[in-house]
């Protein structure tokens, strides 16, 4: 069940929120839990049981960690939990990729290949696993206490707005809200505004560009021109941002209506002046996770420079692997790791002043990020090579995909760019403040957007979220 589907908007949401607001406070978490299980089971009728059992095991293990008296014992339980979680992720997501590569090696030495298993990748497995790891690790570190009740814990793990594609929330960030929260009229309206913003971004911008990108990325060497390649990756740059940030906005909006306030997940990433800044603006919950649960345990900044660079590089290599079981994701992770390492080596920090004009810094960073998305979106190494070749060694001026760029698509692409960059400008902030101070105007604008977006989702059939395969 995706947020931009009629069944979610017109069946699930009215039923859930009606029951939620009618229930006394002590039962609200139960309502959320039941709704979340239904929500997840709708998309994963089999894996939901695996998720529940796995989450229950972590609940028990975290209790064991909390009750343990010795550090050694605590570490054992933690290790067990991490092994189980990573094992789960490895089995469902990476096992066949691992076997595939082993088979490739075996074929080189003329050995019989190993058998592959038919394993379907469950939705949101990466997000669920990462969140459970944060939970258990935080209990181990003493950052937070384990949940008082199983319901509270399961509510945290399966909280449906953030279940499928994040943000990755730490338990101690919302434990107080899980125990007690109030949903005011302002929360409901702000939640609606935030949801509508994400709804519009996802449905109008991301979904409009999706078929254009899908078509361009099927072109072979003869059909693909330089213009096609550049437009394809630029469209993808916009699509992935609006798809993912749109989803995050919807998640944050839905949670706000319930009374939860969670961290932001995106903060205008394309205005970044460096890769370091980019990762403080893009998928913030993931980069926070990487920092807190990978980088720091590896030593963080408290080691030699070489070790720091190694840690940073390794973290982003793992981040690449997390995104998908394919070599292009690994290369993407390495690419980002490399640039972050360079940033670190050169002492480039977001707040540090530089001689280069800001516009140029933003442009160069944006260009390098666009190249990274080329790697990310490509199906395999051959396609990466083809795309980059066409982008940087233009051979002809064919424009095979020209017919895809109708007035509507061009408008959406330009709108995507405007929305990506305009909020950083003062003029936007002034207009925004004026609108924010006029409730009825703001409501009217968002309501119209909401209605028009409903029109679109009703008119077209399913387009799934990009991050659903993670």
């Amino acid at each position: 069940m995706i947020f931009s589907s009629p069944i979610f908007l017109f069946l699930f949401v009215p039923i859930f929120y009606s029951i939620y607001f009618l229930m006394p406070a002590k039962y609200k978490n139960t309502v959320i839990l039941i709704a979340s299980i239904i929500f997840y089971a709708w998309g994963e009728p089999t894996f939901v049981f695996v998720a529940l059992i796995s989450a229950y095991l972590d609940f028990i293990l975290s209790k064991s960690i909390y009750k343990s008296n010795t550090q050694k014992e605590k570490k054992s339980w933690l290790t067990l939990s991490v092994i189980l979680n990573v094992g789960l992720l490895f089995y469902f997501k990476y096992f066949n990729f691992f076997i595939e590569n082993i088979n490739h090696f075996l074929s080189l030495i003329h050995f019989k290949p190993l058998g592959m298993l038919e394993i379907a990748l469950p939705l949101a497995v990466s997000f669920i696993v990462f969140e459970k790891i944060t939970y258990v690790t935080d209990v181990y570190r003493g950052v937070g206490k384990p949940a008082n009740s199983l319901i509270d814990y399961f509510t945290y793990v399966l909280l449906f707005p953030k279940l499928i594609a994040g943000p990755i929330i730490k338990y101690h960030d919302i434990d107080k809200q899980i125990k007690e929260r109030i949903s005011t009229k302002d929360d409901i309206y702000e939640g609606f505004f935030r949801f509508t913003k994400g709804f519009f971004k996802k449905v109008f911008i991301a979904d409009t560009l999706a078929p254009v990108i899908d078509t361009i990325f099927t072109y072979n060497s003869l059909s693909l021109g330089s213009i096609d390649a550049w437009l394809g990756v630029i469209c993808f740059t916009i699509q992935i941002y609006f798809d993912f940030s749109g989803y995050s906005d919807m998640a944050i909006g839905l949670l706000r209506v319930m009374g939860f306030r969670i961290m932001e997940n995106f903060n205008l990433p394309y205005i970044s002046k460096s890769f370091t800044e980019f990762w403080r603006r893009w998928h913030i919950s993931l980069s926070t996770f990487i920092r807190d649960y990978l980088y720091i345990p590896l030593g963080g900044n408290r080691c030699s420079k070489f070790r720091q660079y190694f840690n940073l590089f390794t973290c982003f290599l793992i981040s690449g692997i997390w995104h998908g079981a394919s070599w292009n994701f690994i290369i993407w992770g390495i690419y980002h790791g490399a640039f972050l390492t360079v940033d670190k080596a050169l002492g480039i920090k977001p707040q540090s002043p530089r001689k280069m004009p800001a516009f140029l810094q933003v442009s160069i960073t944006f260009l390098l990020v666009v190249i990274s998305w080329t790697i990310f979106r490509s199906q395999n190494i051959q396609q990466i090579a083809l795309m980059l070749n066409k982008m940087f060694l233009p051979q002809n001026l064919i424009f095979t995909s020209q017919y895809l760029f109708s007035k509507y698509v061009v408008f959406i692409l330009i709108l995507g760019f405007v929305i990506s960059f305009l909020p950083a400008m003062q003029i936007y902030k002034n207009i925004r403040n004026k609108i924010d101070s006029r409730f009825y105007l703001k409501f009217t604008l968002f309501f119209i957007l909401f209605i028009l977006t409903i029109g679109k989702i009703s008119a077209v059939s399913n387009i799934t979220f990009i991050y659903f395969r993670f």
Partner: protein
Amino acid sequence: MFKKPSFYIIFFFSLILFFNLTKINRVNLYIESPVVNHAIVDADYNISVQEIKPTEGRFRKVGVIVNGNFSNIKIKAQKYPYTMKLKNIIIVSTLFPFNISDKNLDKYFYFRNLDVEHQKGFNNINFKDGSSYLESRSILLNKIFLLRSLIVVTFAFVLTTLLILLTKAARFLPATLLITAILAPILLSPFKLFKLTGVQEKHECPVFSIHSFKKKTFQNDFETYLNRKLSFNNLHIKTLNTLLYYTLDKSFGYNQNILIGKNKILYEESFINLLCLKNEVNIKIINQVSQNIKKVQDYYEKQGKTFVVFITPGKAANYQVGIPNRFDITSQSLEKNYKAVINAFEENHINYIDARKYVKNNLDNHIFYPRSGTHWADYPKYLGAKHLLQGLNKYGHYNFEDLTINTIYKNNIPYGEDVDLAMLLDLLIAPVDYQVEHVCLNDVKTPSYKNVKVIGGSFWWGAGEMLNQAKVFKNLDVYFYLINYKKVFRNFLEIQKDNISDKNSLRNDINQGDIIILEINDCIVNLVAQAYIKEFINLILNEND
């Protein structure tokens, strides 16, 4: 509330608003006539015809729309002696439809210049001199005036009261709107308030089972079923489509397969994509299919029957002025395809009737395609039908009369096929204000009793309409894309639709024809893009797939 001046100010403006909204803008006359396609139309009186679904029997129900003063409507018969039945009249304004059934017609209307015998009552009106006046009695005007006044005052009062109350309750409005937007689609789903144009596959509510839930088939089917049920959302779809149509030349109607081109000329985008193909035409397949068509032709000729292939012109191949520049049509694949097909037909000595070539050579300044229709316009349909008869005379040694035009005129009121794409855009109001041509033909002196069987697509309807209008074939059966039914035309009227699912029955039915026509559109790539051609060949030659 009544003491406040604002009440009276809002009331005054509401009166003006509803006065304009209840303005009578047209009259729909519903009449039955024996004319196959169009009722009496004469553009000089600013009358036009909208074709509606025919009823059984000799008379076909049609609607006549009169723009203008309804108190004095002129109706002129184009073919006489002529009989029509006046069924009912609807006086139309936005808020104020006023229906007068045939039982009450003589209370409110009377005819002038009518045959004396039939002056009272309207069930059979015989036109002897070719024209008549329909005049409203003052009783009707008084009645309408009273009713309209009542509506205007009532609505104005209600609106004014609501507005004043709403300003007091304004703080509840956002929540109300939000809850309505979320709840209305599901609560109003049983009422099917708003419909989209076009055919949708029927989806029943799936039956839940653990197995189907595990396989996710239940979820997919249920979501599809629910999406169909939320008809209230069709209003949002139409609103969005209207906004995008006028600003960005876009609509989500018809699965986004409508291309809005230059000057709002509409095409089916799938055919434009065929036009842009850069693949070479597959001569081998075309030859193979042509050889099989020749076998079918030989099979019928041995039985003394006439078999012809009728080539109709598609919009994408023949009317490219509206195609946006972003489409690279330099390959002109459809043109290459057409030439290859003609060559193959020539080489295989197939009896083909190239309506496309004939139409293009004889079109002159007439309209080839309506702006928002995917099929050919009236004049090319006439030319196509004319050339078909010429071809049948040539190949079958018949002596069918030539078709001649009785009336031809242009106006801005398209209907039927001329607006098919416009309707499929699914806008709030279909953009149907563009020039079209209407052709009425003279009846042939001697209709033919030959059994004619046509296997073809939607382009046949236009040519068939012309043949029926001119009363050429008394017995005509059409097998539309060879989907399990045939439409039966007897005495130039569609009388029924027969389901034929059994292949043997279908073959036998077709083989009863004296003349068998296979209609092919020139947008069929390699002669295989439409499955019915292959199915027809296999069916007649009794070959398995």
